[in-house]
């Protein structure tokens, strides 16, 4: 919403603060001012010029030679390129030596062989509007040479307000003026529009006829009030410059005097109005009703098939306007219009919303009706509109006017307890103080209120019609806080009690995971949750209206998204990439609720296993680095057990990892997976290394499992190495299982330290070397005991596999 500071000053006599002060006051009291635009400054060199003669330029088809009277008594020859230059008309003019806003200097020069001494200007060149199609024709009576800015009511400043949904009253200048007047202890006033019209109102609850027009309201639920006036014998034409300037000042484009008059009242009083060409309204009758499968061509030329719950304004036969949204083309005011029917109505917010939505329209009028207008202000708005039309378009207003629908009752009353003010705001304000804060904003305190026992007083507060957002006590509390000034509240510390809510375990788990991953050399990535369907596993959640036709689903796994992030790094030439992410994945399930959501941890790694060092090149990350990370994570975070497992049976990752991968199992359930990412899934440049991935459920991270101290080993340990040649088909794990089963309890650790194939080893065999450490908790082991243990281990291996022992 744009407001003109000049306009505000006209509504609040005595408001002499600077533009930036006014902007700050609005921001701190009511709604934010998004921007402040000064315009019409730097117009010192612009005067009003009258074109006295126009001839064709001898050397250019699109240029004209004009003689311009700039008030100096010496007409100047000016070459002009505008199509709309007319003899006798007034235009903004810059003499040679003058400058345009923005600093462009005008000099006498030759254009296609003809001398030009100055420039006739367009709106755009003066920074007043967007119109660059022609020069800016002025409609008032001015003497040539008069300063242009003064004549046009500029300079002015435009404040762009960012209205909140509750403050629709600030969509009109008067609403903004009220806030500023209250802040300054001033009063608002409506400037005189030069004509007076005090009609005789002809009332009817659902129907009324006056001024030759019948108005009938089908449902006062949809349309609580409908006022209509008739003005005959008007002449449609351009608006006077002051009116056009008002509209331009807020970024609205002048159209004609009648439409501009309705827009002026809209922008001033916040009441949408519509002018029909009376002679194109059949009857003339106005019927406010629901649409009946009809269609309507609106002012913008669009044809609307009217939805069944749309509210329309119809004449005797057909709809002529979408109620509270937009007028119809068939009854609009044109250059030939002489008689007007002016509508000033109230439409119920919910119905205005439905009507606008069904037509796919959002207009200045529908915006206000959807949020609720001041139903008690219709009379003033209609009077002011008629007076303005009489002023700018002439004609005669019918002395009677129609007033159909409900007459608004007395003001809504909302109770306010000073004790509640103290409880919620922390301010001790008595009734007098509260009145002082609220009355300037239009709230009323009926006289003779009982003053109950201290602490139990209840004030009845009358709410002005334009504040339909104020319906309950808490709304008044906000008004009190605003008027008091948010930044004027005392600075007093309060005692606080800690929360009864413990940290959600999800956060504790996230903390542990992020710490672990970051210290293992991975960087945390965050990717968006949207992915193409091709990157999802079974039963993805589809978006109803995705932002792009590609990313239509919510991710079902993290790895595909992380691989995209990896590819982004590749595109920037980065080869060593280690990323992790903690985020939600989603799946459609058959039950209620129909969606399952799970927080996962994902990681991708590729490139060198450690930073390069001059002492020797580090190799690329390989499967054992990945498995090592997985083992560290599984043990460090208590995820369960890690073991070989083919992907496919854990949601989503089937097809993303190569078959030789690992699964993480907790309590018999797979909770994660690790392995090399299938090369076809990664768009890798030739210089890239193999890519590895890891993904697991965050919920698998153990929490709060008690840690108990174990005795430190003090007696000496006895180490023994065991080298065994085994068939390649025997896995290390299988052999270790046999060793552990055969070993006494004194076997403290068993570590594989060597895998050897080659010399001395037959084909199909390999040598595995373990270091076994024996220790007894209470006494020193003898060599004999250890040898006995080693012998039984060897015997067990011989009994289980085709083995040969090497060395010792």
């Amino acid at each position, binding site marked *: 919403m744009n407001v003109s500071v000049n306009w505000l000053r006209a509504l609040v006599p005595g408001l002499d603060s600077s533009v930036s002060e006014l902007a700050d006051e609005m921001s701190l009291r009511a709604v934010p001012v998004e921007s402040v635009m000064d315009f019409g400054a730097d117009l010192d060199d612009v005067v009003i010029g009258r074109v006295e003669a126009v001839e064709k330029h001898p050397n250019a088809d699109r240029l004209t030679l004009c003689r311009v009277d700039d008030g100096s008594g010496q007409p100047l020859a000016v070459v002009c390129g505008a199509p709309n230059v007319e003899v006798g008309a007034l235009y903004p003019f810059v003499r040679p030596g003058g400058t345009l806003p923005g600093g462009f200097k005008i000099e006498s020069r030759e254009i296609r062989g003809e001398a030009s001494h100055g420039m006739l200007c367009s709106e755009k060149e003066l920074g007043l509007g967007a119109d660059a199609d022609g020069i800016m024709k002025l409609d008032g009576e001015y003497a040539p040479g008069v300063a242009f800015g003064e004549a046009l009511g500029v300079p002015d400043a435009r404040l762009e307000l960012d209205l909140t949904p509750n403050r629709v009253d600030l969509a009109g200048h008067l609403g903004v003026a009220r806030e500023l007047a209250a802040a300054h202890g001033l009063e608002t006033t409506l400037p005189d529009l030069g004509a007076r019209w005090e009609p005789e109102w002809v009332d009817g609850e659902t129907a009324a006829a006056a001024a030759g027009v019948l108005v009938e309201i089908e449902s006062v639920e949809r349309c609580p009030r409908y006022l209509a006036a008739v003005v005959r014998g008007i002449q449609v034409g351009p608006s006077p410059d002051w009116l056009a300037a008002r509209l331009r000042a807020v970024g609205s484009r002048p159209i004609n005097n009648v439409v501009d008059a309705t827009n002026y009242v809209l922008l001033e009083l916040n009441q949408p109005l519509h002018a029909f060409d009376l002679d194109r309204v059949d009857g003339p009758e106005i019927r406010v009703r629901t649409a009946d499968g009809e269609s309507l061509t609106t002012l913008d030329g669009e044809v609307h098939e009217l939805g069944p719950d749309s509210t329309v304004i119809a004449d005797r036969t057909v709809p002529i306007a979408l109620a509270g949204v937009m007028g119809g083309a068939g009854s609009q005011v044109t250059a030939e219009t002489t008689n007007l029917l002016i509508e000033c109505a109230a439409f119920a917010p919910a119905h205005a919303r439905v009507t606008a939505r069904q037509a796919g329209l959002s207009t200045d009028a529908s915006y206000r009706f959807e949020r609720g207008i001041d139903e008690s202000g219709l009379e003033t708005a209609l009077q002011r509109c008629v007076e303005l039309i009489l002023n700018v378009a002439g004609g005669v207003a019918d002395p009677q006017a129609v007033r159909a629908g409900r007459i608004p009752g007395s003001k809504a009353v909302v109770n306010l307890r000073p004790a509640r003010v103290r409880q919620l705001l922390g*301010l001790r304000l008595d009734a007098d103080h509260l009145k002082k804060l609220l009355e300037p904003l239009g709230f009323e305190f009926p006289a003779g209120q009982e003053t109950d026992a201290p602490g139990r007083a209840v004030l009845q507060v009358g709410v002005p019609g334009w504040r339909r957002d104020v319906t309950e006590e808490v709304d008044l509390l906000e008004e009190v806080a605003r008027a008091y000034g948010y930044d004027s509240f005392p600075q007093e510390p309060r005692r*606080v009690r800690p929360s009864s809510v*413990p940290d959600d375990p999800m956060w504790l788990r996230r903390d542990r995971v992020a710490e672990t991953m970051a210290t293992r050399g991975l960087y*945390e990535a965050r990717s968006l949750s949207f992915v193409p369907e091709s990157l999802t596993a079974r039963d993805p959640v589809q978006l*109803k209206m995705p932002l792009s036709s590609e990313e239509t689903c919510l991710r079902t796994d993290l790895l595909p998204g992380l691989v995209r992030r990896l590819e982004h790094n590749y595109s920037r030439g980065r080869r060593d990439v280690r990323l992790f992410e903690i985020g939600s994945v989603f799946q459609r399930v058959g039950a209620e609720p129909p*969606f399952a959501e799970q927080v996962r941890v994902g990681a991708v790694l590729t490139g060198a296993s*450690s930073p390069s060092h001059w002492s020797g090149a580090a190799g690329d990350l390989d499967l054992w680095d990945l498995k090592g990370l997985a083992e560290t994570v599984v043990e460090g975070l208590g995820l369960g057990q890690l073991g070989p497992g083919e992907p496919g049976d854990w949601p989503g990752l089937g097809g993303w990892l190569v078959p030789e991968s690992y699964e993480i199992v907790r309590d018999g359930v797979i909770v994660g997976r690790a392995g090399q990412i299938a090369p076809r899934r990664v768009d890798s440049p030739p210089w890239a290394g193999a890519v590895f991935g890891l993904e697991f459920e965050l919920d698998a991270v153990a929490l709060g499992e008690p840690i108990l101290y174990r005795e430190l080993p003090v007696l000496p340990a006895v180490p023994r190495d065991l080298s065994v040649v085994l068939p390649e088909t025997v896995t290390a794990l299988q052999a270790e299982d046999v060793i552990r089963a055969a070993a006494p309890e004194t076997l403290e650790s068993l570590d594989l330290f060597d895998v050897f194939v080659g010399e001395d080893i037959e084909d199909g065999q390999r040598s595995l070397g373990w270091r076994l450490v024996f220790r007894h908790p209470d006494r020193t082991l003898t060599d004999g005991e250890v040898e006995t243990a080693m012998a039984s281990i060897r015997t067990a291996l011989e009994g289980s596999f085709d083995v040969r022992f090497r060395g010792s």
Partner: protein
Amino acid sequence: MEESLPGRLDRIRDTGLSAIEEAGDAPALEDVRVEYLGRSGRLADVLGSIRDLPADERPGVGQLGNAVKQALSDAFDARLSSFEAPDAVPSVTDPTLPGRRQWRGGKHPVSLVVEEICDIFRELGFTRAAGPEIETEWHNFTALNIPLDHPAADMHDTFYLDEGYVLRTHTSPVQARVMMNHPPPIRILAPGLAYRRDPFDASHAPAFEQMEGLAVDEGIDFVEFRAAIDYFVHRFFGPSTRTRFRPSYFPFTEPSAEVDVSCRICDGSGSSCSACKSTGWMEIMGSGMVHPRVFEALGIDSERYTGYAFGMGPARIAMLRYRIPDIRLLYEGDVAFLSQFSGGAA
């Protein structure tokens, strides 16, 4: 005939020096040290006898004794370092060569900001809560006093899923879930992703980090609310940062307020500052006193309990803090970007 003390000292020096010279390695040298310089070594033995001399001889002999001790110590140190040197100096004798490193990793800048905010609010008794990203319309809108057909719901540009379900448009529904499950006093933060149908550009992302805060108890008023926010701002942005509370509108708070902090780039002066559009202020959160209707919808006595709630965007705050110009950088996963935040001081 017993040798004179000076004579013994001379001999100890001579034999000691040659023993040091002959010691083949550090352990042998240590043996020599113990023999000559140890607490009950040969030198100590002689020095102990000085006190038996006539008083006029003592200073001269004492001086000689100290000189011998010094000579032996120096020789010992020199010999010891001659053993150590070959082992300690690498084959390449250039200490400026880089060391052998591990890959560094680190948390995302948004996570760092979320952590820091949570740490500060923890000092005020706040814990961390969580809720789902797919929400019911009831939790996302209705419970928060946002009627589905109200213009306020339009402000949210919602991603709709099946009937009755949406991607949460803010983290505020966590408020509703916490209030339904826990009695006051409640003080929680709920960081998490929220979704809006915004095009992905330099300053908008369709999924973005949000952080909800909620405090509910007896006796919480607007004054406490302001004090809590001020405390946070001063701890997070620095003690000289100023705050500004402006009226605003959120259906689930009233009175509602936007909180601005003085611009960190231009220090609040606003002079041709692109960061704050020359206003001197940066908006950091929407907030307010919990609307009584929210309490009522969730079964909390709104006459007894009051509270405040706030929401802020850690992604935006991370951009302010680290001066990141484009929000898309946060989501690209570029390691050259992510590695910038794991250094020393943030």
